[in-house]
């Protein structure tokens, strides 16, 4: 029993798109929720955001990071099956009329969430603003994968200015806030940016709801791996999140916890890459 890969496309120098048959998830998924997938028998459980869920299929953006994601890129092709995909997990975001809604994204997970979130927000009558940030031209996605069709206002930034505006979503957001154009911010991607984002919006009292990425195992609240300090209390990012109030998260701790297995992951990645080289795959 597996779940068939129905589409796979390269998005950029580091990210790719993958669509998997998962009718059990597709019919109940809502924006804000994620899935957990396992490539094969020896694989680990990794959380992934959902770009879309439709016609019994789930679309995801994946960054070639370590063993799991490299494996998915190099060894799994259209027609192959992955071992497991579970979901939807976590709490959906609250879709209602807020006024001007921003979605800010600077890494895969949030690029996926941007489209789904803003689509729902637009349907709920909001004015929608998308900001997609990338490091440089090579990392930028083809435009059809971005939130342009559902955004009333749309920005791309790159750090080196090679595409769109030079800078980061934080820069654009600052301008928008100064123009009094922001009622609520949704964001995701790099935890370091989210920490800065929390500090940016806090003085203005702008509600800021972001993906709290933490290392997960089950994704259902069973293991406590994803625990974070939230308003002084322990919460589980998978069960109580993953999108949570950025102003209540202890970001320094969250950032540290997300690097827990860096040594092991590096080792595993090296062994895996050596294997690929041996086989002549890379």
């Amino acid at each position, binding site marked *: 029993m597996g779940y068939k890969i129905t589409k796979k496309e390269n998005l950029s120098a580091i990210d790719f798109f993958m669509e998997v048959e998962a009718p059990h998830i597709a019919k109940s998924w809502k924006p804000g929720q994620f899935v957990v997938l396992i490539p094969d028998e020896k694989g680990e*459980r990794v959380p992934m955001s959902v770009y879309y869920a439709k016609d019994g299929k789930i679309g995801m953006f994946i960054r070639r990071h370590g063993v799991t994601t490299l494996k998915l890129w190099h060894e799994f092709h259209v027609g192959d099956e992955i071992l497991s995909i579970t*979901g939807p997990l976590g709490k959906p975001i609250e879709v209602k009329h807020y006024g001007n809604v921003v979605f800010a994204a600077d890494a895969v997970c949030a690029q996926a969430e941007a489209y789904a979130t803003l689509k729902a927000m637009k349907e709920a009558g909001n004015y929608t603003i998308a900001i997609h940030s990338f490091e440089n031209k090579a990392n930028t996605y083809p435009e059809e994968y971005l939130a342009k069709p559902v955004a009333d206002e749309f920005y791309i930034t790159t750090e080196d200015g090679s595409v769109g505006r030079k800078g980061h979503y934080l820069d654009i957001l600052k301008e928008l806030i100064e123009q009094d154009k922001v009622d609520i911010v949704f964001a995701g991607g790099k935890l370091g940016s989210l920490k800065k984002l929390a500090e940016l919006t806090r003085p203005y009292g702008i509600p800021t709801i972001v993906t709290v990425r933490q290392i997960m195992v089950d994704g259902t609240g069973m293991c*406590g791996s994803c625990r974070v300090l939230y308003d002084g209390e322990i919460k589980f990012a998978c069960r109580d999140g993953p999108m949570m109030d950025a102003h209540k998260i202890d970001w320094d701790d969250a950032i540290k916890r997300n690097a*827990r297995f860096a040594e092991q992951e590096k*080792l595993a990645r090296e062994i895996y890459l050596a294997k690929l080289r041996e086989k002549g795959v890379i």
Partner: protein
Amino acid sequence: MAGPKLIKERVPTPEVPVEERIKSFVEVNLGYDFVSAVKEAERCLQCNPAPCIQGCPVHINIPGFIKALRENAESPEEAVKNALRIIWDDNTLPAITGRVCPQEEQCEAPCVMGKAGEPINIGKLERFVADYARKHGIEKELLKEFTSTENGVKGKVAVVGSGPAGLTCAGELAKMGYKVTIFEALHKPGGVLVYGIPEFRLPKEILDREIAKLKELGVEIKLDHIVGKTVTLEELLEEYDAVFIGTGAGTPKLLNIPGILLDRIYTANEFLTRINLMKAYKFPEYDEPISIGKKTIVIGAGNTAMDAARSALRMGSEVTIAYRRGREDMTARIEEIKHAEEEGVKFEFFLNPVEFIGDENGKVKAVKFEKMRPLEERDAKGKRKIVGTGEYITLEADTVIIAIGLEPNKIISEEATGLKTNPDGTLVVDENLMTSIPGVFAGGDAIRGEATVILAMGDGKKAAKAIDEYIQKKRLPA
């Protein structure tokens, strides 16, 4: 009555030597062979009434199966088949309960032989019957006897969770002729048996066999399905005649003390899941990582704590179990405590953690404890109350595992608002194990908080009967 045959000592079961077993996850106890099992069975006095039956939460006919075993000593196959038939009447997972039940508190506690010497080794006999039957194809034959020919005709039942409660309920209903579908959140069935209890106590092949048995009975298992998220309880009720909830107590309790977010502080669930379910002990052959240092402190004193401690030991760490009460209040099975001690796990009592201390990289490096003192007064569970002494001690540790208990998850109860829960998160059920929603039954840790495998199975079985009655009554013309 104490005739010449009264043998005070148990026939021992061989164990893998300590030096060998601490290097791997192979099963520690090797169990009986037929000759030694019969020898042990011959010690049984065949009491009537038999207190062992009363001591067993599901009232297995213990003297009955023991008698069957020794009566046919010339034909092992026949003997085991008869014994297994008797056990299966009350317990369909004897290979598991024979290994994990706290027999010393249950059937073996009141055993009459225990007054004269050592109680009959009921657990190991049960395990022997199950293992022998599996190895020799006896189980398969017997399964046919128990299988209903009318599979699916009596109705359709959904079972949520594939721990011992769910597995038992599903098996019983399938035997009665229901079409049963199990919905399991994880990618492997078994509940705590697969993600919590390590291989050195319960080899995975044994669990695999139990699951295969269910499939032979026609039970369908839908993995990766979370009821309350992937499908709702309401949707299940539309499609099925009844639902059984066996979702266990899978949410770890945490210590809300400074330093809880430091690296290498694990809950027992995370630690054991990484190791058992995801095989992190085989990293990097398997992708799941785990990070364990040289000195581990495990906090708690139940089976979970022992399992975590012995797993950490096998991963090459020195291990100390720190418990806030005394030795006599430890809740783990005696055999696990014994094995842990033999293997070199150290124990510290009357220490209550108050702070985790980290190094400059955010990794834990020590645990600060308050020393506790026992009082004469006892709490509701009969344990001596403890108070802080105001004295503190700091123990070095670069890995900490918290094993202080679990509570039920709220995935279903949060979504299905009609489902009533108690303040501790357990589901409210009536004497037939029916929840506040008609047609929805529940059992195991989901209604008891943390309990045991055999109690979960007992609930599964009881609920199966109640579900059968409920569905049949519904079918009757008004």
